[in-house]
């Protein structure tokens, strides 16, 4: 019963099929950044606390630092580059800029991914619900208020345009 320290994986990243050979210990976010050169997902704490590496795997947001690349064999992964290029989060990006919901921007890709995860469920979440959904994303610049404002504004705008 052998086990390997290096394995072949096949997955879809931002719509593109990818085949790669990875070390078993390679985290998903390291694989995305180092092997695929998609550096929008950031690495902060590497222990699941800060949320800078938040990305979508099989339609659910996960911690890129607490997921192994080998576990994503067969998975569909969407990073901030994918969410951005498809236009899915264009309104969030615009609102973040308009409301100064970012300063250094380090946390922003993870925050946008978490915010979109909430907003795609539909409806207008309360400010408390927005804060609860973003509880796993640290921002050290803004104090969060402008982030909540931006997400709330987008939630309102999306609901009114869908009417």
């Amino acid at each position, binding site marked *: *019963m*052998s*086990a*390997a*320290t290096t*394995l072949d994986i096949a997955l879809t990243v931002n719509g593109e099929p990818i085949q790669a050979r990875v*070390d*078993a*210990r390679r*985290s998903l976010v*390291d694989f995305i950044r180092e092997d695929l050169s998609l550096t929008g997902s950031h690495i902060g704490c*590497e*222990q*699941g*606390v800060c*949320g800078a590496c*938040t990305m979508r795997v099989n339609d*659910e*947001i*996960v*911690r890129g*630092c*607490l*997921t*192994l690349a*080998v*576990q994503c064999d067969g998975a569909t992964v969407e990073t901030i580059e994918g969410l951005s290029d498809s236009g899915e989060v264009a309104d969030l990006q615009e609102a973040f800029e308009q409301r100064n919901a970012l300063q250094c921007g380090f946390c922003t890709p993870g925050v946008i991914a*978490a915010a979109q*995860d909430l907003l795609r469920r539909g409806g207008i979440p309360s400010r408390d619900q927005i*804060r*609860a*959904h973003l*509880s*796993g*994303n640290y921002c050290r610049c803004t104090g969060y208020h402008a982030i909540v404002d931006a997400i709330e504004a987008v939630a309102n705008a999306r609901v009114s345009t869908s009417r």
Partner: protein
Amino acid sequence: MKPAPFAYRKAFSLEEAIALIGANPEGRFLAGGQSLIATLNMRLSAPAMLIDINGISGLDGIVLNDDMLEIGALVRHAQAERSALIARHAPLIALAVPHIAHVAIRNRGTVGGSIAFADPAAELPACLLALDGEVVASGPKGTRTIKAAGFFKGLFETALAADEMLIGVRVPAATADTRVAFAELARRHGDYAIVGLAASARSTTSGLRDVRLAYFGVGDTPVRATAAEAALADGDVEAAVATLDLRPHDDVQASAAVKMHLAGVLLRRAAKQLREAQE
């Protein structure tokens, strides 16, 4: 930091997983990985092999079996949070799950992993103890059940043998007279609790009986405060607070004295929840 190198093997059956751990005593099971991978990244542990159990089917069910609710080891926290069966038959767990970490972590973290990891500040081990639940473990000699009271042995230490795997937990299904309460204090919602309390009781015409108070974040394991339970069953909340039989130690979050104070605060809140549910 990055983990030390390890080998990886995905198991597709319970038998395969148990055979693998038997042949690789330096291996560890990988379920949700939300605690394990963090400890690997920080090099607090360096197993020679990870045995990924996520490919084993049949471990992600939530089933009511007679008067017991069975929750499979691979049930994700997010799945438990959405489960109508858990909301109805294990309302204490439904109250606790939203306090477990954050959305992205609840999407992957598992009920079985949380119980087997036995973090003394985690919510689910305390819930299992408060509910007088049991753990189902499988090993080369077959399957056995272990009562929660005898399962949590020490800091990150359980009654599981080295070649056993936790395959699920069972809790008695709530009845009409079941009352539960849950409260915790953390610096940020979703962080490990400074102190937390999972409580259950039975309601009678004259008050509460079978009060079970399981605290977490106040010792090496989840612990019951049995003297306070008796006082609360007698209907005296302040006596229960005064007699709180806990012995927390200082940790990075708070001193023992602060934890004792907060344990009393949580007891008053939980007593209120139990009482309100009774009315």
